[in-house]
Structures are given as C-alpha cells and as structure tokens.
C-alpha cells in the first residue's frame, strides 16, 4: 500500500476554542503540523487533547477559531467528508462484519469497485500483519489485533490525516510497545500526517516527531521530545514529561542552592528567593561524598534501578542508576548532582 499524498497534508489550528456549558475544553489552541509530521498531544485527563483531535475529525464543533487542512478551513465540512482516518480508544470494529468487510467499509463508502476494494483491503491487512485473518470477526481477535485492523481500516482509504485517540490504552504493556512501534513504522512508510493523543509520556516521546503538552485547554509547550525533556518551559511540563524530584532551595544569581549544592537554572532570569527545583532522577547520582541521605526503597527496572532516598530534612527523592549498584534499605548514602540545568516549580 502506498500513499497517494506522499508529502502529507498540513494541519493548522488557529486560536481554536471549544466551550462547553461551564467548561472551556480548548482555550485558543494554535498548532501547526507539517505535512507528514507525527505530532503527539500529551496531557492529563481533561486537558483538552481528545477534544482537539475530535475537533479536527469533525466530531466536535469548535466554538471559535479555524482548523485548516492545506490552508482550507474545514469548519463547515461534516465528519464523513473530512477524509480522516481515525483509530479510537475503545474497540470500534463493526461486530457484524468480518475483518475484511470492516477494512473495506471506507472504500465501499467511496464507491470503489469490488475487485479494487478487495485488493486494497487485503494489502492494508498485510501491512498490519493480519493478512490471514480477513474472514474472522472482531470477537475472534485479541485487543491488539482489533486495533491493528482498526488501523488498517483507517489507512486503507488513504486519508489526509491519521488520528489516533489513545489507541493503545486498552492493551497490555508488551502489545502496546509492539503496536506503538508498528504505528510509527507505517506512518513513516506512508508519510501520512498524524495526530496522536495520549496521556502516556513515554509513548509520546517514543514515537512523535514533536510532542505538544497540553494543560487546561492550552498547549503549554510544543517541541521535539528531547527539547521537552531537557528544556521544559514550565514546571508543569518538567513534572509531566518524565519523573522529577522536588527539592526546596534558594535562588540567587541564576542558580539555585539545594542542600549546599549550586545548580544552574533553565530560566536564569528568575528573581532571587526561595524556590523548589525540579531535578530529574538521572541527574542525581551516588557519590563517595556529598549530600547525605537514607535509602528508603530500591526497585529493579530491568536495564536500570531506581532508588528512593530521604534527605536529612525529610525531603524524598528518586535516584536513577545502573543495576550494578543495589543499595540496602536503611543504608546511608551520599548524593551528587550532575549539574544539568533545572526547572523551578511554579
């Protein structure tokens, strides 16, 4: 299966607002997605990420602003004419149709001839690795297989944009990672513009070209995964993207003094005074000398280990380190900081 629009479609949100009675789900969202780009909308429940995706699909009517596809406003275009491929969070295969009929459905709506329909549906199923399951029904497939079929069904019509509304959230961890990687492979192969909604930061960072972190109906920060992780523009982003320790300290001259250690600030313009530094677990390490702490718990995570320690003032923090070190619970250790710039909590 090949893309009919190899360069993809440009998607633009311009000051998009969605107002529900007593609740503003989208509050002037601006977003520009380049043709063929994979953008993830990341945020906690109720931040407006799904509303943004549904607005692009046409399943929600926006209150204000514009949504443009290749420069054309689609506000007046109904869902069934927007030419979007969508995969839903809950299983959405038509239970009374076979897998092949499900995949053919969109083509049937476009009045594609029977022979071409069959060929294209079979190709789409091959693409997601389910070529031999065409005659099965949804209830005869696992959750992961159902979402693969839903992906094939969404892509077979060669839509302008692929919309993924938390398609992995109902799956178990292993299948989730497999399908996540597969989605990215297929997206790159087809060059289709993709908007992916998730509340799982690991998922968003792993697959997206850019990640937009949303909070209370607004995009808090958008950037490449590395940028978001290493240079969060706010405490919310730093806290949401990755695990952050909160260490109280005193800001002075663009640095923060945390337990006698000076750490540079990501935003040095901050006025002097008391503040809370957000320090990544991987920016803290065990050392022969430094800040004394007592080990509370330690967890083996496969390739690495994460240990929770308590400082003398009771502040708890996580330390991420190699598996060769396995500190005993209750042991006294010393901590050092890598010196990476830190964000401050609001």
């Amino acid at each position, binding site marked *: 299966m090949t893309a009919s629009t190899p360069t993809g479609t440009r998607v633009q949100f311009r000051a998009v607002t969605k107002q529900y009675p007593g609740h503003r789900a989208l509050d002037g969202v601006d977003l520009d997605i380049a043709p063929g780009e994979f953008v993830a909308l990341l945020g906690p429940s109720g931040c407006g990420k799904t509303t943004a995706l549904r607005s692009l*699909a046409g*399943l929600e009517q926006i209150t204000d602003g514009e949504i443009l596809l290749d420069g054309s406003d689609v506000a007046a275009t*109904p*869902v*069934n*004419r*927007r*030419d*979007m*491929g*969508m995969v*839903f969070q*809950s*299983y*959405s295969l*038509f*239970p*009374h*149709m*076979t897998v*092949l*009929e499900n995949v*053919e*459905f*969109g083509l049937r*709506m*476009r009045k594609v001839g029977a022979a071409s329909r069959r060929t294209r549906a079979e190709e789409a199923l091959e693409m997601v690795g389910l070529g031999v399951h065409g*005659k099965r*029904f949804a209830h005869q497939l696992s959750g992961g297989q159902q979402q693969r079929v*839903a992906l094939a*069904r*969404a892509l077979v*019509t060669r839509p302008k944009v692929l*919309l993924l509304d938390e398609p992995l959230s109902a799956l178990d961890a292993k299948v989730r990672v497999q399908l996540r990687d597969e989605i990215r492979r297929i997206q790159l192969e087809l060059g289709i513009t993709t908007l992916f909604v998730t509340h799982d930061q690991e998922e968003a960072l792993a697959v997206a070209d850019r990640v937009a972190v949303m909070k209370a109906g607004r995009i808090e920060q958008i950037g490449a995964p590395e940028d978001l992780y290493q240079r969060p523009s706010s405490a919310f982003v730093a806290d949401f993207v990755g695990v952050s320790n909160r260490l109280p300290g005193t800001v002075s001259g663009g640095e923060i003094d945390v337990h006698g250690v000076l750490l540079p600030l990501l935003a040095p313009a901050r006025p002097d005074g008391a503040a809370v530094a957000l320090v990544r677990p991987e920016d803290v390490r065990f050392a022969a000398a430094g800040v004394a702490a007592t080990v509370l718990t330690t967890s083996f995570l496969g390739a690495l280990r994460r240990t929770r320690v308590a400082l003398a003032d009771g502040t708890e923090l996580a330390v991420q380190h190699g598996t060769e070190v396995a500190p005993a619970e209750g042991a006294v250790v010393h901590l050092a900081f890598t010196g990476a710039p830190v964000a401050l909590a609001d």
Partner: protein
Amino acid sequence: MNRVGIEPRAVTRWLILGVIGLLMALPIVAMVEFSLRGAPGEYTLDHWTGILDPENERKYRGLFEGVGNSLLLAVVTVLIVNAMLVPTMVLVALRFPKLQRWLEFVCLIPITVPAIVLVVGLAPVYGVVSRIFGSSIWTLAFAYGITVLPYAYRAVRAAMDAVDIVTLSEAARSLGAGWLTVFFRVLVPNIRRGMLAASVIATAVVLGEFTIASLLNRENLQTSVLLISRSDPYVATIFALLALLFAFALLVIIGRVGAVQPRRSSS
C-alpha cells in the same frame, strides 16, 4: 469450588422444568380436550373441521375478521415501534444523551396506566384520529403503539447497551458514511435482536389485547372470541388455542432469525 449454591444438579433442573412445564401445559391440554368433546363420553374433530365448513361461513365471518384485524394491527404496531421508537432511541443516544432518562421515563409510563384509564384519555383523541385517518381498524395501532412502548423500549435498550453505538457510529462517520448508512448498515444489524424481540412482544401484546378494542368499539381477535364464546364455546377455545400456537410459532421463527450467525464471508 463447591457446586452447591452455584447451579442445581441435573435432576433438580429437570424436576423444576417438569413441574413448570406441567403447570403451563395443563390448561392447554384441558383446552384441547374441551375442543374435542362430542356427545357425552365421545371425542370428535367436528368442532375443528366445522370452522372451515362453507355452511358456517356466515356464522364465523366476524371471527375471521377479528383475526385479520388483529394481524393487521400487529403488523402496523410493529412498524410503528421499529420506524418511530428505534430511530428516536438511536437519535437520543447519539445526539442528546442527557435526554435518555426522560425518554426511558416517558416510555415506561404506559406500564403504570391501566388500559381502562388509557381508553378514557384516548376516547377524545380518537375523535380527532377518526377525522384525520378515518375509523378504520388499523388506527387502533396508534394506541397499541403506546401500550407496547415499555416492553419494546426495554428490549431495544438492552440490545443498544450491548454495543458501543456511539463509537461505532463515529467510526462509520469518519470512514465516510452518512447518517442513513450509519443507521441501516452499522447500527440496525447490531441491535437487530432487540428489534426482533420488541416486534415479538408487540405482536403478542396486540394479539392478546381486549380492553382498548372493546371500549373503543373496534373488533379484534379477543372481542370476536368473546362474542362467539356466547354461542359456540368450542370454537372460541379453538381460536384461543390457535392464537397461542401462532404466538409460539412466531417466537420460535423470530428467535431463529435473530440467532442466525453473521455471514462468514463478504459478497
């Protein structure tokens, strides 16, 4: 885990089934026995064969008209339920979910209103109905459409609750389907069993309805059976038996249609 308390043993199951079956079969067997009675101590098929005897055509004409009227009413009532209730329920579920509780409340009201009270309210309404649609028997289906609402609503609702119709319709819409296609090709096949169950219940209610037809001076199966029972109790019993048999056959046929597996391959 101990089986006791989870399900009864096979013997107990058959015993319960047997006792209930016997209780239900007893009046039917008694009806059959009564319909076959001839001279004292003898049994005959005369009452059964007499129904189709051309000589009795005039005598039983009203009865056959009543049967025809009830069948016509059943068909129109089923059409009203499927053409009005189902689309309304789907519309409310998809577009106005906050109205679901109100719709349910309204649909369940008829179960709390005795038929005789309903007729008192319906009598002036039927004055208007008669002026618009005439006084043909089928207009009674408007009233029957109301009386079957609670049963039909629950049957269709159960089927709708079994599938995520919101996601299915959104998926179909995103794939390019218009609302009619969503309704007929995606939703109806998935709530088909509920619609069939609603149709069966509607038919059974209509075939057994007496009060409304009688008080509104219309002739249906039940009013005809009552009328003929005064002159020929045997034939009244035979028709009551046939109505039971018809309802049973309908139940079996529609149950089988509803249970048909989806097609195994596309055309």
